[in-house]
C-alpha cells in the first residue's frame, strides 16, 4: 500500500476530551494512520474532536474511513466532533450526511466547549 501523506497528532487539552489533528491528505492510504491515532486516544475519553485545520485534501475513500472511525467511537460511547473544516468540506459533510452524526464547529475552542 502507498505511504499515506497524512500526519495525525493526538492531544488531550481537557480531561475526557481528545483532539486528533489531521494534516495532509485523507485517502484510502490513511486507514492505518487513522486507526493508530484512534488507538492512541484514551478508551475512556467521552469525546473526540477531529481537527481539520491543516487538511489539504480528502476523497470519498477518506470519508469512508471517517464513517468507520465514527462507528468505533459510537461503540465506545464516544461523541465525535469536528472543527476547522473549510466551506467546501462542510458541504461534503452535508452531502454525505456526516453532519447529522458529527457536530461541526468553527473552531477548536467551540468544539471543546461543546464537548465539555
Amino acid at each position, binding site marked *: *500500500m502507498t505511504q499515506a501523506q497524512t500526519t495525525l497528532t493526538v492531544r488531550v487539552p481537557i480531561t475526557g476530551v481528545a483532539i486528533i489533528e489531521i494534516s495532509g491528505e485523507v485517502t*484510502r492510504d490513511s486507514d492505518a494512520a487513522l486507526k493508530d491515532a484512534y488507538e492512541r486516544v484514551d478508551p475512556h475519553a467521552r469525546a473526540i474532536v477531529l481537527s481539520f485545520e491543516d487538511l489539504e485534501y480528502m476523497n*470519498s475513500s477518506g470519508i469512508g474511513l471517517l464513517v*468507520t472511525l465514527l462507528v468505533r467511537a459510537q461503540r465506545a460511547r464516544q461523541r465525535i466532533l469536528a472543527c476547522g473544516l*473549510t466551506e467546501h468540506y462542510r458541504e461534503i459533510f452535508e452531502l454525505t450526511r456526516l453532519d*447529522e452524526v458529527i457536530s461541526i464547529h468553527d473552531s477548536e475552542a467551540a468544539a471543546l466547549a461543546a464537548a465539555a
Partner: protein
Amino acid sequence: MSTQPDERAAGPWAAPIDRLAMTDGHINVSGRRPTAPMNGFGRMWQKTYRTALGAVTPQQAITVLKEHFPEFWPAGNRFFAPLAGIAPGEVAALDLTMPGGLKLSTGVLVLYADDESFTLMTPEGHMFAGWITFSAFTEDGQTWAQAQVLMRASDPLYELGMTFGGHRQEDRHWVHTLTSFAAHFGVEGEVAVETVCVDRRRQWGRARNIWHNAGIRSGLHMAGAPVRLVRGRRSPS
C-alpha cells in the same frame, strides 16, 4: 476559514444536493435523498472486491471503467449511464433483477469521480444505504481494480433479504463486473472478496425507511401496469 477550495479538492465532488432529480420518469429516483451508511437500518458491512489488471495504468483503467461500466454488469441488470457519463453530480437509473425475478428500479448519485476512482451513493429506497467506490491503483508492481462497498441494508425487509441470499447475490454481481473488467484487458484472474462487519448493531430507529422501499414500490408499479394500459387506451387522443 477558506471559502475557495482548490480545483483538486472541489472538482471531483458532486455539488451540494438535497434530493435527486431525473427527467426520464424512472421511478424511485427523483425526489429521493441520497443516503449514507449511517442512514440505513441493518448491520454495517464493508465489502472489498479486488482483481489484478495487468499492464495498464490506474488512470487508463478508470477511464475504461467509466466509459463501459454497464457492459461489465451481469445480464438481467441495467445501469442507465447519464448522458454526461460518470461525472460528479450525475444521476444514473438502475434496473436490478432480484431473487424471485422481481425487477427493482432505483438509481445512484455519482458522489465523487476523479482519474483513479469514482463513488456511487444510493438514494432512499435502494436496497442498501451507503456507497460503493471503484478505484484502480498500483501495488506490488502491478495495477489492481477494486470495488469497495460500505453499506447498511436500508430497512428490515431488505435486511432480511440481504441475510438470506442478498449478500451472495451482491458478491456475484461485483465479482462478475470485475471479472469482465479484467477480461477487457485480456486478464483472467480471480476476484478476491473480503467482507468485514463494521457494526453488528441494527438501527431500529431507521425501520421506517421501509416506506421508501424501492422493491415494494417497483412491485406495485409492475402490478399497476395493466390498469395504466387500459386507462391509456380509453383516454381520448
